[in-house]
């Protein structure tokens, strides 16, 4: 028997929650875990180690990592400026950070394509410099960096706000230069939040679809991302193959999230 509680509604709330969670999330995900094995172990292995699949996984994970690492300094810069400085337009800047969260991915994809196409506002000058962005792996990374930036800013911001000036003041009274205080006191305190932000940006980027497919060009073996390959297999009614690739994608990104989690715990020593 459950312990009696002063507040009512736990049973009802849990019932609704598990029903909602089970029907919408768990049962369908179970299908993803079970369906691939129709192919047999060897079949699944063959299905996810096709050269085209491996190339797409390399691109999805590689571009996601590059994008998250590019977002790291940019996000830190934006978070620092928004928290620490007062300047005209700060409010607008702060609100604009969430744009990639709110903007539908298809719109973002279309917009980035227009911007970085060889005749676009940024694409034209870059093309003149010999850099091709749209319809190349670089374009994929640009789109993923767009999608991931707010994750880093929003993870770092509250930690930076809570940090307050005392620790830096203490460093100054102990003889630290501004740079030393920043490198030895501020940055380590932000470490776990930065890693968490990179992890989130990365996880989002690995599975990203809408903002990428317009700008990627989608050439097999070159600029084709793994989620697109899943769609391609579904269109050929290769359910098991699509499920195998989906499962592989999901497991790989969970494994990476575990790695990020472990890094975060290492950096968190002594921090709240």
């Amino acid at each position, binding site marked *: 028997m459950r312990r009696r509680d002063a507040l009512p509604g736990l049973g009802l709330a849990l019932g609704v929650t598990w029903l909602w969670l089970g029907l919408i999330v768990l049962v369908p995900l179970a299908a993803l875990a079970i369906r691939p094995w129709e192919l047999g172990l060897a079949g699944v292995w063959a299905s996810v180690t096709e050269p085209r699949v491996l190339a797409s996984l390399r691109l999805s994970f590689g571009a996601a990592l590059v994008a998250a690492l590019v977002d790291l300094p940019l996000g830190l810069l934006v978070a620092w400026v928004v928290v620490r400085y007062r300047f005209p337009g700060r409010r607008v800047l702060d609100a604009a950070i969430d744009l990639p969260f709110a903007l539908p991915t298809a719109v973002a994809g279309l917009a980035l394509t227009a911007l970085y196409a060889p005749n676009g506002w940024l694409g034209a000058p870059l093309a003149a410099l010999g850099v091709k962005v749209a319809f190349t792996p670089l374009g994929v990374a640009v789109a993923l960096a767009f999608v991931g930036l707010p994750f880093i800013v929003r993870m770092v911001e509250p930690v930076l706000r809570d940090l307050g000036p*005392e*620790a830096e*003041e*203490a*460093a*100054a*009274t*102990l*003889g*630290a*230069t501004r740079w*030393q205080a920043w490198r*030895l*006191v501020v940055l*380590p*305190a932000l*470490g776990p939040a930065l890693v968490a932000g990179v992890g989130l940006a990365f996880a989002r980027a690995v599975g990203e679809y809408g903002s990428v497919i317009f700008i990627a060009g989608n050439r097999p073996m070159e600029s084709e991302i793994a989620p697109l390959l899943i769609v391609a297999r579904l269109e050929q009614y290769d359910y098991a193959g699509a499920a195998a690739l989906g499962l592989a994608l999901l497991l790989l990104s969970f494994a990476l999230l575990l790695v990020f989690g472990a890094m975060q715990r290492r*950096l968190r*020593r*002594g*921090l*709240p």
Partner: protein
Amino acid sequence: MTIVVSELRRRFGGVAALDGVELSVRSGEFVALLGASGSGKTTLLRALAGLEFPDAGRILIDGRDMASVPARARGIGFVFQNYALFRHMTVAGNIGFGLRIRPWRSRPSRAEIARRVEELLELVRLPGLGGRYPDQLSGGQRQRVALARALAIEPRVLLLDEPFGALDATVRRELRLWLRGLHDRLGLTSLFVTHDQDEALELADRVAVMRDGRVVQCDTPEALLARPADAGVAGFLGDAARLGCEVRGGMAWFAALPPVPAEGVAEGQAVAFLRPVDLLAEPGEGEARVAASRQDGRGVRLTVAVGESLLEAVPAPGWQPRRGEACRVRVLAARVFPA
């Protein structure tokens, strides 16, 4: 190391946090900055450390003007109110920080730093805790780590902002006496901020009472209690009761108490400040009555009803007062100021 502060001013928005502070601290002194919150004491301490910059006025440390000396070059040890320990560093990392960050020419060797850290851990009575993180320590231990960290750079001056503010009463008393001993042993010149008058009066060589951004009086605890500079200081110190009176012919006359000498106070309406130890209650028919009696750490305290007012007083030796018993009150001393 002497500290001389003159005409120091600092405004925040429209509010003057420091409004012409004058203060001079002799080498080796232990001085308390005492005041209510908002009186400017923390701002003064931060200005001394170079964490805050005055709009006007001068700070001389050992005769040297500090105006263009940044905080990191002042060589002042600062202990923050909430300690501001670096949470991601171990205790040893915190204490050694000030040595590790020196430019390589003046930086001690790794072994030397480790030795210094051990010494400081001994000094603050935390031997063997160097590997802990700050969040694994108690409040009192953190406070001592903060102190060791500040002492590691061998400061000429030690500044402490409410050093005992976050500690519970027993730890607080113990640390107070220990800190005072440490100050004497290391030959420091120290300044600490507090809003607790017991703490200030018990520990400091001299107490600088601050109000509205100024030091209104800086004196030894005895002198401060005996001769407060004005009604504000008198009212702030020693749990004094405030009583209206009238000064005539060098005496202060009360409604229901015997008169006391009030030399040098202008004739007319005045206020008198009476501490419990200034009032002696004796048995016998008189104008007063015992309203309550309680025992505290320093002996028996009476609350006596005199006319309209309730006053704290000390009973005459050997008398066991009962509630409601009539008594007489003698005024041993009073500090009287024109109203």
